């Protein structure tokens, strides 16, 4: 049984169809990314999984439970970090941790968790005085207080500096090591590429593709590019017989080879066989962002 299963989810707000038809199957213990532009339906999808919204159509099961009907049971084992949600402004880190801990039957030791997220020095600091990164770390800690079996993280690192972002990533990887299922909503390509075992690309309320980050890149069929310079002009025919090569052009004395598979290695080997010395060799591989553009056919809006 998948940890989280969404089938044919549909949600409409007035005239806007936020989620048209979304199906996801998240396996136990994996980090599952939900990627898409603003308005693609990411947040609506995870909020429905969290039981905050009632779907207009389709079914949702989290750890075998219905998020609405089995709300009280699911709340014990599902941790949720909400995008932009704040906490009691005048309460300190420690007060908030103890308050939220009291809601769960079983859970983590607040002091230990405060230490794990690196807020020991801020434990007497009020929420309103925390930096963005500290507040976000507190949010993660609160989501983990009930020792959840599954966690939903919505825009985990938005607004964090690179250092704080890397700390967050390490924490999420730690969750996977503990066997916790993680659903990660993100805008951030590097984050998704580094953390996610699999991810779903959402576009206009639909799932466009589900695969590993590398799988999505190769599925997009985007070409790799090898560029190099040679001291003497050479006969490009030596590359024609290489299976991985699709095209060879010479532009301003630079040779540009496109293709697929292990292109860089294949080209290098062919050049060595032909006694051609390549200089300034550069290799470009399609990124997840390129794959996103190709698969959704629209510009990715990484901002906001």
């Amino acid at each position, binding site marked *: *049984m998948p*940890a989280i299963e969404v089938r044919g989810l549909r949600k409409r707000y007035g005239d806007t169809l936020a989620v048209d038809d979304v199906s996801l199957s998240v396996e*136990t213990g994996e980090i599952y990314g939900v990627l898409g532009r603003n308005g693609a339906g990411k947040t609506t999808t995870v909020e429905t999984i*969290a*039981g*905050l919204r009632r779907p207009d159509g389709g079914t949702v099961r989290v*750890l*075998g*439970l219905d998020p609405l009907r*089995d709300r*009280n*049971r*699911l*709340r*014990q*084992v*599902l941790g*949720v970090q*909400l995008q*932009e*949600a*704040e*906490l*009691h*402004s*005048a*309460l300190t880190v420690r*007060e908030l941790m*103890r*308050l*939220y801990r*009291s*809601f*769960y*039957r079983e859970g983590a030791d607040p002091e230990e968790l405060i230490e794990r997220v690196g807020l020991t020095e801020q434990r007497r600091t009020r929420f309103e005085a925390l930096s963005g990164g500290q507040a976000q770390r507190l949010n993660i800690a*609160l989501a983990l207080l*009930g020792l959840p*079996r599954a966690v939903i993280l919505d825009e985990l690192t938005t607004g964090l500096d690179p250092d704080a972002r890397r700390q967050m990533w390490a924490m999420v990887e730690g969750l996977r090591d503990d066997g916790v299922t993680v659903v990660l909503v993100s805008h951030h390509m590097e984050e998704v590429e580094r953390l996610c075992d699999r991810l779903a690309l959402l576009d206009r309320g639909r799932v466009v593709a589900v695969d590993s980050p590398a799988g999505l890149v190769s599925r997009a069929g985007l070409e790799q590019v090898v560029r190099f310079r040679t001291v003497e002009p050479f006969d490009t025919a030596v590359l024609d017989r290489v299976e991985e090569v699709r095209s060879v052009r010479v532009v301003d004395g630079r040779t540009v080879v496109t293709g697929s598979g292990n292109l860089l290695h294949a080209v290098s080997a062919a050049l060595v066989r032909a006694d051609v010395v390549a200089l300034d060799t550069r290799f470009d591989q399609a990124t997840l962002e390129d794959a996103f553009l190709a698969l959704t056919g629209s510009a990715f809006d990484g901002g906001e």
Partner: protein
Amino acid sequence: MTDIATIRAHRPGPRAWARLVAAEATMVARDTSGLIIPFGLPLLILVMNGMSVQDEAEATGIPIFERYVIPVALTIVIAVIGVVNMPSFLAYYRRTQVLRRLAVTPANPGMILAAQVIVGMIQSAVGIAIGVAAAMLFFDVGLPEHLGTALAVLGLAALAMYAVGMFVAAVAPSGNAAVAIGLTLFFLFGASGGMFGPTDNLPEPVAAVGEALPFGAAVQAVGAAWAGGEQNLAHLLALAAAIVVSAAISVKAFRWD
């Protein structure tokens, strides 16, 4: 692998309630500016009136201080806490998504409303105790003639103020708007209910409307209990009506996000 059968529901118990009430009390106590009006203004009114009306009271034989000044001071305590302060917290919790954040834990966001009412009750009791103690110490006022009735009437009036506060929290989009709406209602209720002088001085229709609103009804009912007069059923019904109408609208209109 997940075994659903091992997942058991658990409603937050007494410990969670205690922590939540303590959390709301901390929020209220650390909001220093929100403490000044409910505790300071009634004392100021007692002192200002205490110095000016005592002779008048003796001359006419009507205990104006007991009949009007103390009831007004105590009603201000419960009205400010219920109609202005409490909704500003609740609207702020909604705007900053604190209520939503609670909704994804085993706690119900409704618990925060209940905790605010409990804290408001405690705060009101403290404010009333300070006001009565000051009146007894400095102005030689005794306890109410009908002590039990006075306490019951204050409790009913407090519930009416919290119900109106819930209505404000339900319709206000932000903490700021809640303060604005709450203060407007507070001054409307207060002005027509005797906050700026006995209602005898008001035009008759205004006074009549004021007595039907929670502030005026509370002042009249508390005054009657203090001076040992009979309770006018109309004032008690007005308070009960405020509770029923406000609660009904709040339940229908309250948004959690």
